[in-house]
């Protein structure tokens, strides 16, 4: 009832996953078996910061820009998914309506979709969410020599 052939590539893939994980486990555990016994002392166990003790214990928080970029990534990732699907189907969709397609409407769908998202992209761009540099590092007008 559930023909195995359907799943075969995935099963093979699963086999690869198992093999790869097995390899990883070996790779992670072997050195602790083969290598010299671990020694610990206060210094060895402390973080490397160019040879000085770490200036503060845990890493502090950092620029919110990283979150923003991650969030934007999610949103645009969705866009990409839709576009990929659309792209694969495009040549069928673009066929004239008689031939089972939508004609140019197929393109229009994507264009409108893209335009809306591009508005967001441009908005983010304009409002500086995609800039990392502060004002000083931005290229300034070159002084007249």
């Amino acid at each position: 009832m559930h023909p195995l052939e359907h799943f075969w590539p995935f099963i093979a893939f699963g086999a690869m996953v198992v093999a790869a994980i097995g390899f990883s486990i070996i790779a992670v555990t072997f050195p602790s078996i083969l290598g010299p016994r671990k020694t610990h002392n206060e210094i060895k166990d402390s973080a490397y910061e160019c040879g000085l003790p770490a200036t503060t214990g845990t890493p502090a928080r950092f620029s919110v820009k990283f979150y923003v970029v991650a969030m934007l990534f999610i949103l645009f990732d969705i866009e990409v998914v839709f576009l990929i699907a659309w792209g694969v189907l495009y040549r069928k969709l673009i066929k004239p309506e008689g031939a089972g397609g939508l004609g140019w409407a197929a393109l229009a769908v994507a264009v409108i979709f893209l335009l809306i998202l591009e508005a967001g992209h441009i908005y983010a761009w304009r409002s500086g969410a995609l800039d990392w540099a502060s004002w000083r590092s931005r290229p300034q007008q070159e002084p007249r020599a």
Partner: protein
Amino acid sequence: MHLDGVILEWVFVIVRILAIFVITFMIVPYTVMAERWVCAWIQDRIGPNRTGWFGLMQPWADALKLFLKEDIIPHHVRKVYYVIAPTLVFLPALLTMALMPWGSNLGPMSCVLADIGPGMLVVFAVGACSVYGIVLAGWASNSKYPFLGGVRSAAQLISYEVCIGLSLVAIFMQTQTLNLTQTVLYQAANGWLVWQQPLAAFLFLICMFAETNRAPFDFPEAEQELVSGYNIEYSSLKFGLFFLGEYANLMVASMLMVTLFLGGWSLPFAPLNAPAQVWWVGAAHVAIFIAKTACLLFLFIWVRWTVPRFRYDQLMGLGWKVLFPLALLNILITAVVLGLRGGA
């Protein structure tokens, strides 16, 4: 499916998994060596030549050395995450290999381990998960340089992932498939996609540089700034896994590029252009695929030793402000052209 058919399939699966491991572990160490040699040659040097015959044993010495090294797990790290992070860097590359058509077929055995229908989606999905390793490594190290390196790298990876997807949409529009084998067959029939979609190929190449953290985008480990980035606190084979993962990713990136744009295992000459009927054509296909990959690897190495590094914000800017619109443009052009041609 008959039982012996199933057994045969399983045998093939095992053979191909072994083949993948062999290919990976032959190509990756020698990619590292190629890096060291090519960089030496570019710099008028000789490069490792004292270990083994012409230095050919050097990668093995390095790898075994890492095996035999003390495996420091400092107390200040978040231990579980610290241990699994290196494997998470290496796993995605290995898994992507499972989808790679590294040949047409050898006798009755197809050379793709997992010929999944929408294969590219799997590649995307697996690739998307490669962020975890780096982020976790940076965070688990609980120290500042790795942390900065990890975060930078993660932001870089995800930014360029969008561009990768977008740059490939155009070729999906042409090939109408997400399957890698089909893509290769399409190219065998219709010519390489790099000629039909040069812009997409170029964008994809740039994205691959960024995704594999290669110069000019080598931020996570930008030595001059972050010493060696997210892997500072790693020693022994855990560090080796990062190293290996990095080059395995490089290899996978090259293979993807070959598969998607450079005709995969095919060469536009009669017997080599179609799936193999005889075993030696199959072998030749594997060789062609690996040769093409090697050329791209050389390109990666060559570029690294030529150009300066971008600054982080320039890199992000490039991704979001240049490649992104360019990819969209490419999609639109392709769409219009295909539309004018009237679809299929």
